[in-house]
């Protein structure tokens, strides 16, 4: 197994998912297989002379003028919200602050 149980639990916590024990076992197996497979593919590519990058377009320093344009209407903004009130999105209170 390429991942540990603790790593799966950590990732679940970051994603704010509560997993049952059997789910942790199941995802441990599935995630490990996915990563293992991808790593084996990557291993076949020669990357010795390739710099790491997050960009493939070759573009650089793309900026726009500081010019305001109309936003969406409040109605449009809230259209897909499952809960809304007085123009606000509503969510279950998250602890903190």
């Amino acid at each position, binding site marked *: 197994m390429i991942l540990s149980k603790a790593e799966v639990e950590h990732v679940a916590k970051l994603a704010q998912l509560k997993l049952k024990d059997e789910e942790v076992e199941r995802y441990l197996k599935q995630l490990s297989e996915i990563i293992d497979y991808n790593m084996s593919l990557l291993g076949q590519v020669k990357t010795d002379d390739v710099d790491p990058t997050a960009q493939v377009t070759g573009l650089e320093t793309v900026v726009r003028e500081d010019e*305001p344009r109309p936003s969406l209407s409040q109605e449009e*903004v809230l259209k897909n919200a499952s809960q809304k009130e007085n123009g606000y999105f509503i969510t279950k209170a998250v602890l903190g602050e």
Partner: protein
Amino acid sequence: MKYDVIIGLEVHVQLKTRSKMFCSCSAGFWNEPPNTHVCPVCLGLPGALPVANQEAVKSALKVGFALNGQTLRQSKFDRKHYFYPDLPKGYQISQYDLPFSVGGWVEVDGARIGITRAHLEEDTGKLIHVNGQSLIDFNRGGIPLMEIVSQPDIRSPEESRLYGQKIQQIVRYLGVSDADMEKGSLRIDANISLQPQGKWKVKKDRVVALKGYTLNPKVEVKNMNSFRSVERALTYEVERQLQTLSAGGKIDQETRGWLENKGVTVKQRTKELAPDYRYFPEPDLPPFVFDPKDLKKIREEIPELPDEKINRFVREYALEAKKAQIITSSKELADWYEEAVVAYAQTEKPGADYEHIDSKKAEIVYNWVSGELLRRLNENQTSFSASLITPAQLAQLLYLIDKNEVSSSTAKEVFAEMFRTGQDPQKIVSEKGLKQVSDVERLRETVREVINLNPKPVADVASGKAEAKGFLIGQVMKLTQGRANPGLVSKILDEELK
């Protein structure tokens, strides 16, 4: 045991652009109805493409320069991941390893406080917690926000406040932010710990323990909404940690919130997140490569900053450092002062070179600006830019005093009228009949009257009591409602008492 107080500050400054950081929504969201300044980009809807705001990038570079930081040749944005409802995308676009500015320092009351970095990111939405629910307004989400991180170089709560105020002053001089703590356009979080003296040092931006010693954990303090509360919260925190340590207790590494009305910090329930932001380069925003020529141009747009201005005022105007500091507290005030000084110098020598200003004149203008003008602005709660009186008008008034057209006490009255109406001093003086009485015969009559009414002081003058003469001059001034030329009164008095 003696402890050192070790404080590092994170200052967040909203940049004053017209549109948001990565989309064209208007950045003027203050007091607007919720969720009316949002679009697919700042809502993080699928398929939306962020594009960086040129002005915000430029402002960020300026802030970096002003903090004596270094611009890297290449810079980029990164995604900082965490789940919280104020963040619609599940990540914040920020900068990780290649921020717009690295290193630097500011001087605070003679001490040099190091800057670790200054980077650009997007602000988050605003949450309002009510009855177990959170209301979300994304108008603020995506406003350009700079984070300026200090080194752990700050040694007291007072120095923390001064450092924050210095950052505020600098970004205001640059004109890139309102930096108003009450409105949240400048926000300060602090990291504070107490370590025994001689048991620690700063290495690579961090506090590290010397051999054989374990550091006391640091506490993060949040929720300080004014410079005053920064100083109060940290004073409380120093005392709390000191008492805990002195009693043999342990400090917990935690986040504490300042409760302004109770005057205490309390442990905050945190977002229950693992501190794992999984930064990676923002693939939607190509990296920045800066042309040295462009950087030079931006650097040239930086105005004279407070420290340089103070030095120049001390050098050119022979102003005391303390006074130079007061008069440069804001750029508007410093510019107003300087314009008045030059205008005043030119009443005597038209076309006077402002590098050779009579220091006496600079001092007189300082007294009027710091005294009369600032006092009246405070009393009327008027902002500097809304004041009606112009620097040239103050110069004219001072010229009238020099020419003995008004006495200095009347001048204050004239100033009050100028402040209220914005009228020229000459006009006020002639319309209100405030012109100084320099007519010798008219004054002589008044002097004789005073002599007749005050036999005892007159006798005292004869027996050599100088203060009695002052009293008689005062009586003449009183009878003329302060409009007599005091020098002339003194001279006539001498003649009459001979």
